């Protein structure tokens, strides 16, 4: 960019958003649980952010602002989804019900298996708890920043995170105790 060139709004936004694109994508990935949905969600997030960029006054910080838009976009997408995911949809996304391995969670599970079960358990959380857990445990954000992003108090943040972690833990333990390879399958059965 030349010295005398005054960047347009598009250029300024693109430069700013490029710094956070990966984190936004990962947030959307964890929230939606699907790479395709995550791409759509993240693009939609950045598009919404660009449209609102003109009125962004910088009070909350660019990162907080972008994350807030991303969370809202993901929640909108998830609410448009059906509440129960069918087995066929799970298979389309790579779930193999023939896999009958039942290792103890955290101990005998291979890394990929554990991760898969964590993500499946995460997908079963309500959107509000899910967002809080992702921001804290996946993206390692401090409580006050999470509170700013979600526009709630720190106490509420801690409460949601605590309940979300508890639920994940219970899901994993129950799945292991019942001998099911898939957390979803187990939760579906429980319901």
């Amino acid at each position: 960019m030349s010295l005398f060139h005054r960047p347009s709004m598009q250029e300024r936004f693109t430069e700013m958003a490029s710094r956070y694109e990966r984190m936004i994508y990962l947030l959307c990935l964890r929230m939606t649980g699907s790479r395709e949905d995550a791409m759509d969600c993240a693009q939609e997030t950045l598009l919404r952010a660009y449209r609102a960029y003109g009125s962004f006054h910088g009070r909350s910080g660019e990162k907080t602002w972008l994350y807030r838009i991303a969370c809202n976009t993901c929640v909108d997408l998830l609410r448009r989804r059906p509440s129960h995911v069918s087995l066929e949809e799970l298979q389309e996304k790579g779930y193999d019900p023939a896999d009958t391995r039942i290792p103890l969670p955290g101990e005998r599970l291979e890394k990929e298996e554990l991760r898969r079960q964590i993500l499946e358990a995460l997908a079963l959380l309500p959107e509000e708890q899910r967002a809080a857990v992702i921001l804290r445990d996946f993206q390692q954000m401090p409580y006050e920043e999470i509170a700013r992003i979600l526009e709630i108090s720190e106490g509420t943040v801690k409460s949601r995170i605590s309940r979300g972690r508890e639920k994940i833990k219970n899901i994993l333990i129950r799945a292991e105790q019942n001998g099911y390879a898939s957390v979803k399958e187990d939760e579906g059965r429980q319901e």
Partner: protein
Amino acid sequence: MDCRTFELLLDRTEEEWTQDEMREAREHAAICAHCRMLWNVRREMADMDRDEPLPPAFSESWKEKIRTEAEHKMNIRLASLKRPLAAVAAVAVLVLGTTVSYNNRWGDSRRSSAAYQAGSDYDAGYGYAASAKRTANTLQSLAAAPEGALMEDSVVFEAEETAYGAADDPSVSPAKIIRTVSFTLKTRQYERDYQQIRDLTEACGGRIESLSISGDGSASSLRRAEFTLRIPSARLDDFISDARSAGNVSAYSESSDDVSDSYYDIQSRLHTQQAKLARLTEMMEKADSIEDLIRLESAISETQYLIDRYSGQIGSYDSRVNDSTVYITLRELSSADAAEVKELGLGERILNAVRASLETAGEVAQAFIIFLLSALPWIAAGAVLILAVRALLRRRKARREKREQE
């Protein structure tokens, strides 16, 4: 370390633990499967994002969307300006057209309240001083006039030329200009201005040749005075400038008639006849026959008649040249016309200005309607053209979209 403490420790990142906390955590996890599981889950959660790659197409994809969005915004902005610009252009055309129509309607005779500036005309008339051309040949041609029988006497011719050579010299004969001035004054203070005109006439040494008064001063019968004044030409300019201040001049005209040729022509004829009369009288005294006496008597009588006639004409010219004629019409103003007069109070002037403004608004509205009606054929032609172009563009767009779909 117990499980509760361990769970609290897990709430902080491992980078934030102290060495002792790390050691105690390891020791507890070694004996507690539940806490060990929690620690593994938390570690995997922290590592998962680190290991997850960004899809290669993602970055370019969202940037392309932003670019498209920016172009779309620009197009919308330009499109949104079209209507306001079109509206501004339409208003400008209407205002311009109305103004032209309004000015053409009124032209120079716009308002009766406007003071008529006749200075240039007045100056041109006043400054005129044509020099009359009189040549010696004129005298000879006069001598060849109807009194042909006596022209055979060469003494008469000689006497004429001798007597009138100096008087007929063009270089010393002043121009004879008859000036006539006419103006109309409007006033709210009729009586004061009426008297002022009379006083001015007397002060300039002039006289009122005729005066006509009408009206009784009521709203339906405003007063009007028409003066015909004879003002000495030498004082005419002073009189005019003083009289114009008595009210508001709504009309003015002046004319200057150079009668020098006619004047000196008649004067020469007069001198000719006078010399002729003197010669005839001389001849009468020397006549020795009755026939000569009768003939001379007849000639004298005819000459005297011409002398009287020419003298009368000269006298008339002198009167009109020496005393200019001024026609003044003094009109009492109604309240509707009062806005033209400066001596009103502020309240009255505001009220009258509002009335005048409303009248102007009415005139402008009329001019607007006239312009609109006169421009109607052009507007209709323009509308047809625009519709045709839009239809053509729409058809092209539809064809292009159909091709893209195929």
